[in-house]
């Protein structure tokens, strides 16, 4: 890869103050990696290893305690306006505004970007339809099922057509059939529009199916294992990778 990376972490550390004041808690520990334009990177790691924290840093919602995080060469925390419309996030929980209908929730990002209202409604409706939510446009979140809410939040992130997509276990609340369809659709969309995507998951299969690259995090977060996959990767090799990931994760468990 010769081009500048879209996301670059250099020895990023994030510590949180313990509520009882007894020192600091390390959530991300000298994490370094690079993600190139057009890549889909799947991130695996045990619960509490700092995956969501890493996302918050990329999204500019939290600032690294040490080290440097760069997104397209800029500081996501400091350069607030620069990133408007550039990063889309599907959060681990749906985070829908309870006072907005499904359609209005999807419209949020488009309204922030001052999109022509008519155009915006059309786009939002299109995304809801794509995610199988036609007919629920005017439902409030409390009237939707968990999986439906999660799909609304996916539509909200995709509707602004961001360069970079961060998805934190976006399909975990869905049944396997729906999840499989959406995975395929997700990969197709990212590829088609040459977007860059980081995808957190707990499922090794999902990570290998989606990712060009799989990162396995240590707890606290730093790279414990990394592998590159492609359509050309053979069945035997895939099985080997899967075993390796399982071994890394179980070692992690033993030392956690």
């Amino acid at each position, binding site marked *: 890869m010769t081009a500048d990376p879209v996301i670059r972490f250099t020895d990023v550390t994030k510590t949180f103050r313990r509520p009882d004041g007894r020192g600091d808690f390390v959530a991300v520990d000298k994490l370094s990696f690079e993600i190139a334009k057009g890549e889909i990177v799947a991130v695996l790691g045990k619960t509490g290893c700092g995956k969501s924290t890493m996302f*918050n840093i990329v*999204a*500019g*919602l939290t600032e690294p305690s040490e080290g440097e995080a760069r997104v397209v060469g800029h500081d996501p925390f400091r350069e*607030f*306006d620069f*990133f*408007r*419309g550039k*990063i889309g*996030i599907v*959060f681990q*929980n749906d*985070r829908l*505004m*309870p*006072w*907005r209908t499904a359609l209005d929730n999807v419209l*949020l*990002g488009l*309204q*922030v*970007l001052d999109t022509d209202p008519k155009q915006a409604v059309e786009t939002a409706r299109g995304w809801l339809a794509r995610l199988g939510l036609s007919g629920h446009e005017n439902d*409030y979140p*409390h*009237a939707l099922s968990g999986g439906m809410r999660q799909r609304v939040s996916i539509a909200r992130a995709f509707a*602004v057509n961001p360069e970079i997509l961060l998805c934190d276990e976006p399909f975990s609340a869905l049944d396997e059939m729906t999840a499989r369809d959406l995975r395929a659709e997700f990969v197709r969309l990212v590829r088609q529009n040459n977007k860059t995507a980081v995808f957190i998951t707990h499922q090794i299969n999902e990570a290998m199916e989606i990712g060009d690259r799989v990162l396995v995090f240590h707890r606290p977060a730093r790279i414990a294992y990394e592998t590159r996959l492609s359509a050309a990767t053979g069945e035997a090799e895939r099985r080997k990778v899967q075993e390796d990931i399982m071994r890394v994760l179980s070692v992690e468990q033993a030392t956690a």
Partner: protein
Amino acid sequence: MNSSIARVLQATAGMILLAVIWQILSMTLPPFLFPPVPEIISRTIEILITGSLLVDVLLTAARIFGGLFGAFIIGAILALLIARSKTLENFISPVLTFFQGIPALSWVVFAIIWFHGTEFRVLFIMIMTTLPAFTFQILDAIRSMSKDLFEMTMSFRPSRWTLFRFLIVPTIVPGILTAWKVNLGNAARVVVVAELVGATGGVGYQLLRQQQLFDMAGAMAWTLQLVLFVLVVQQTINAIEAWALRYRPVSERSI
């Protein structure tokens, strides 16, 4: 249908009982102490349909609204400032708490000593007495904002104004409506005291006159004007609330 009749009956039963007790008292005690209920009602209606008297009610209503709007605007600005800066909080909060301890009657005295002009005095008293509660209630509403929703909204990187419209306003609306309901009651009680600063009109002025005339039915009728006013406005706020918070899920179970 049946349940709505039952609800109306439940809501009025207490008041009817009160009226019956009063009526019994009026039949056994001198009427200048306990005037009969029909007389109170006819006097109440008389005020409502007599233009020159109704003006007094409307004047007081305007004073209540003026004070509440003033306190709301100033309170909202103070609450936003406090929410954004710890330093300002340390600066402003103790002063508001100090104000909260000052009785309405003291403000009346201060207003008379400091200012000329009835309306300005009344407005000053109304604002000073309702401002602390308004500020604290709005501040509380701002602080109850969900961190998850805040960060989700911030991830779209809105301008301050957009953030205010899309997240902060909808978050604080329930708290603001509650604050209005609470402060409305307070303001209705304070306004009659405030009108003692030399107002030559208004419910407080009329009450003072009834006292001088030793007219109990009149005193009751003027008091009821304020009670009715509060009831009507409360119901209006309730209706706004039901509409603004219609998105809220309701459980089929009661608490």
